[in-house]
């Protein structure tokens, strides 16, 4: 009876003019039902021995998808860990919040007493007290308070601000930022320079928001 294997065998032995078809028949012919189990062990122990192998099992697409998804998930997890690594949990810098005394310690106008230590000016007007962060909005220099001319003047490129920190001359694009202020339980003024209020040109004025000043 012509089993498929025998048929392929006879195909292999009869001369075929086309080398492509004969080599195409070989991979099928390599599986002979009479062959030893597909363990790929050489029948002879000598090196360079001839072995046979079983045909490849059908592709398991689901298994491939699972493996590739697991690899992708691991790589994404490693990448997120890599990013998180660059943000330490504690740093050794001064705190961004500090106390600067009571409301009564300040007279009307600009007080420069904390400029060296905290980079701020404390400004008291008739209705409010606020803290200006002493950073020029042009390129970040520290302006000078010119009491005699009643203005802030930046030595770097000449930006000028009025006594409330609003820019009126020079390259500064907007008024100087103001720091968050509030009163604590003992009535001390607490400043937080990590939370700044700004007033970009043509945008919302944050200087009237509750944390930007202390009403008197």
């Amino acid at each position, binding site marked *: 009876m012509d089993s498929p294997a025998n048929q392929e065998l006879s195909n*292999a032995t009869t001369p075929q003019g086309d*080398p492509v078809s*004969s*080599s195409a028949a*070989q*991979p099928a*012919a*390599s599986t002979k039902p009479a062959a030893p189990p597909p363990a*790929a062990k*050489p029948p002879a122990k000598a*090196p*360079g*021995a*001839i*072995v*046979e*192998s079983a045909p490849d099992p059908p592709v398991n697409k689901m298994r491939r998808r699972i493996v590739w998804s697991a690899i992708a998930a691991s790589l994404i997890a490693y990448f997120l*860990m*890599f990013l*998180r*690594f*660059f*943000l*330490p*949990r*504690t740093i050794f810098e001064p705190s961004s919040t500090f106390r600067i005394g009571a409301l009564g310690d300040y007279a009307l106008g600009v007080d420069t007493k904390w400029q060296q230590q905290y980079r701020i000016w404390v400004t008291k007007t008739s209705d409010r007290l606020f803290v200006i962060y002493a950073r020029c909005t042009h390129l970040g220099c520290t302006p000078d308070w010119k009491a005699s001319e009643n203005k802030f003047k930046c030595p770097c490129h000449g930006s000028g601000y009025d006594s409330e920190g609003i820019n009126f001359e020079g390259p500064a694009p907007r008024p100087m930022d103001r720091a968050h202020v509030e009163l604590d339980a003992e009535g001390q003024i607490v400043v937080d320079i990590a939370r700044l209020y700004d007033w970009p040109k043509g945008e919302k004025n944050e200087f009237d928001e509750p944390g930007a000043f202390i009403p008197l």
Partner: protein
Amino acid sequence: MAETPDPKETKQLTDGETSSSSMIERIREGGSSLKDRAIEEAKGYKDPQDTQLWKSIFRVSHDRSDPRNRSLAVLSNVFLHLHPAKINRDAVRYPFTWGMGGITFYLFIVLTFTGVLLMFYYHPTKADAFKDILYLEHDVPFGKLLRNMHRWAAHLMVITTWLHMFRVVLTGSYKRPREFNWCVGVVLLVLTLLLSFTGYLLPDDQLGFWAVTVGTNMARATPMLGSEGPFGPQLGMTPFNDVRFGLLGGSIVDSNALLRSYIWHCIGIPLVASIFMAVHFWRIRKDGGISGPAPVVLESEIKAVKKK
């Protein structure tokens, strides 16, 4: 005239037209070339490998049915072309090779990667080094993991180097023509051990400090180059100019020693080791590929050879 314009003709003038063709025809041509570009784009959504973007990145077709493409995929890739495009099927027989050379190289990559990340938080100064290691352990997210990975990979790399050398001896893979590659490998072993030694001092803890003290004290006894070695003093060697002084940057294990250890560990020795590794891998290629037993041949392949 033009019903559906032939793509080949839209870019150039059709027969009989001069450059002063009418506005309508020019607009039509412009529109049709736009249409062709749109068709080209749309093809990309079906098969990304047809887009110009793909071709620009990958240059060669990745169609695996053509043997030439499969070779080209390796040969034309900057990362893969260091591999041979074809290897003997039995090169991957782990019972023969153990894969230890490759595992050692993989550990070197792990050490480099974890090491670079650790460098972001380490200052090689006496004031900071010890604190930085504590900082990594407690305050840096995944710092503990990275530090431990670095330490484990270092220990494992020494072990796998040893296993690799053991395997090479057992399989006779140091014999002709591979003798020189064995020597290169021995140099790599020494460099691996030096990397371990220089890295050990960096936490500036008791373990590291005394290990370097003992190790460099041995250097004092070097013949001719050590202040306490044979012929050393006669050649003018003192504790302030001998080889130990050169290693430590001083006569004591102090801040100079720490900095030198750091530079040797992170830059000097890795560079030298990379060069030796390049030679080592190159010689494997040139000496006939990874050594293995005589190749296994499938019966089907024997028949095909006869057929041809």
